[in-house]
């Protein structure tokens, strides 16, 4: 784990242009970003400002059209797709707006998914799953299916899945977007706990002003540039 204060995300000169047919649509323009380890960042901005695109680049899901991307000591723009996949499984934990749990698997089995990419034994995997679910406070729901849980509970299981591999960075795209106020607060409390007690770096994109408040750093993105 990177030492506290060290830059864990370094983006330099990032450009990202999408193409609709032949028409170029520039989304990010000469963007620079430094994120210190242990930070809890909230990125806000109007629709279409490129927030999700920036998040995808940091998480190794997408490549910039130009620029250098260094995350947790790896130079992402120089890595192949296969290398990126492996890197993601070891370094990033994902939290999505629509939870994205697999409906045919139980909570425990959903949390176990990222561990299947490691070489750990069945017993070892079970231990880690239990730990993760305990951290999010849902150990008693281990064998329940997503349809048997509320939205807030599903998201917390998703967070357990995000941390089970002990990632360096947690990437969250509108984590409270589909939740009611109470569940949203529960999730935000949990994320604060992960940041303060377990020292996880969190990079969160959000519309929700409550969510932004919980973060330690707030940034705004407008028309492809950071304000």
């Amino acid at each position, binding site marked *: 784990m990177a030492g506290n204060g060290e830059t864990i995300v370094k983006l330099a000169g990032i450009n990202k242009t999408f193409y609709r047919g032949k028409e170029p649509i520039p989304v990010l323009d000469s963007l620079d970003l430094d994120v210190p380890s242990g930070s809890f960042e909230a990125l806000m901005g109007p629709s279409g400002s490129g927030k999700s695109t920036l998040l995808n680049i940091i998480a190794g899901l997408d490549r910039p059209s130009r620029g250098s991307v260094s995350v947790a000591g790896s130079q992402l723009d120089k890595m192949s797709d296969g290398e990126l996949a492996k890197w*993601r499984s070891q370094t990033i934990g994902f939290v999505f707006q629509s939870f994205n749990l697999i409906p045919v698997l139980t909570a425990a089995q959903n949390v176990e998914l*990222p561990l299947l990419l490691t070489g750990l034994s069945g017993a070892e995997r079970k231990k880690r799953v239990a730990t993760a679910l305990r951290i999010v406070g849902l150990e008693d729901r281990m064998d329940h299916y997503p349809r048997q849980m509320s939205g807030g509970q599903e998201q917390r299981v998703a967070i357990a899945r995000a941390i089970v591999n002990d990632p360096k960075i947690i990437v969250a795209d509108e984590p409270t977007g589909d939740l009611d106020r109470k569940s949203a607060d529960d999730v935000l409390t949990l994320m604060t706990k992960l940041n303060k007690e377990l020292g996880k770096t969190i990079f969160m994109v959000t519309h929700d002003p409550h969510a932004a408040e919980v973060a330690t750093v707030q940034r705004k993105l407008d028309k492809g540039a950071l304000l």
Partner: protein
Amino acid sequence: MNIATYARRNLFRRKGRTILTMVAIALAVLIFSIIRTVIYEWNRGAEEAAQDRLAIRHKVSITMELPYKYIDEVRATPGVTKATWANWFGAKDPKERIPFFAGFAADQNSFFDVMDEMSVDPKVLEEWRNTPNGAILGDLIAKTFEVKPGDDVTIASDIYPGDWKFKVVGIYKPLRKTVDRNSFIFRWDYLNNSDAVPPPMKDKIGWILARIDDAAHSAQIAKSIDAKFEDHDDQTSAMSERAFQLSFMGGFTAILTAFDYASVGILLILMLVLANAIAMSVRERTHEYGVLRAIGFPPAHIVGFIVGESVLIAVIGGLIGVAMTAGLINGVMGPFLEENMSGWFPYFSTPPYVMGLAMVAAIGVGIFAGALPAYRASKLKVTDALRRLD
């Protein structure tokens, strides 16, 4: 849990579709097995032909006859232990109870000696030699004509005019399943002496069946027999009994080829059905595959999930199909055909190798059906997959 659990659980996602797909696979496996069993059993009679017997006929046509004296020369050929002959009678039932049955005029002294898979009581043979118009019947034809030993029976002929009355002296017992149970055998001399055969056509025989001492010498002995009659007007064509029976099958090659194509055709249809079902499931789960790839599952894993699910469905459907095959063909259809169409199919059961072939085909179909959807899913960019909300 492991990756297999995920594959297994996915089967139940859309139970109806999975079940329908498995039914289609089981059906296809059943049809495939039926077709291949028919092809396999078609020539079975020839496979069981006696190894140590030769058939000798007129070289030009089965319908042309050989001179009677040829039998002595064949019997004198080195390697031949005994020989008999028969003439085709073109038998018909005047009451049209049966469309077709085999009627022969054969030598009373040697026929059942050479054709020992038709077993006849020595006392019956004795009586046959004493009864000029005696006939020995198969059990099924006797039942059709409603006669038993001691009764008279009248048949007609395509070739020889008029009604022919015979006295049933006995029933032969078939010692092998491939023996025809509808044969009607009477004395050659009765035919030869009758007015129906005009003097220039007398003393002619249809074909000769010869027993040889060593099956390994079959080809040589056949050649030496043909060589004997090479310079005569009526040349012979001697061959193993198996080749003789297969020579009647030459006219069926086209049908068997069509069957071959059909067995491939059903697999093609199956592949389309399965590929379609898999493609639909993949499309519905594109978003989910995106999530898995975001978490870090490499594209190869995704391909594995999809092809694995396809193969799993194919294998389960295939096993059901094999079970249906064993039950339907070996249990019901087979015995029915063996009893009622024993001329065509003395044996009708699906051999294990066909069932194995069907399973391999099912697995192959599973792989190919899953391949294209899997490839397309793996090529999709993660961010695009996540965007889809199908």
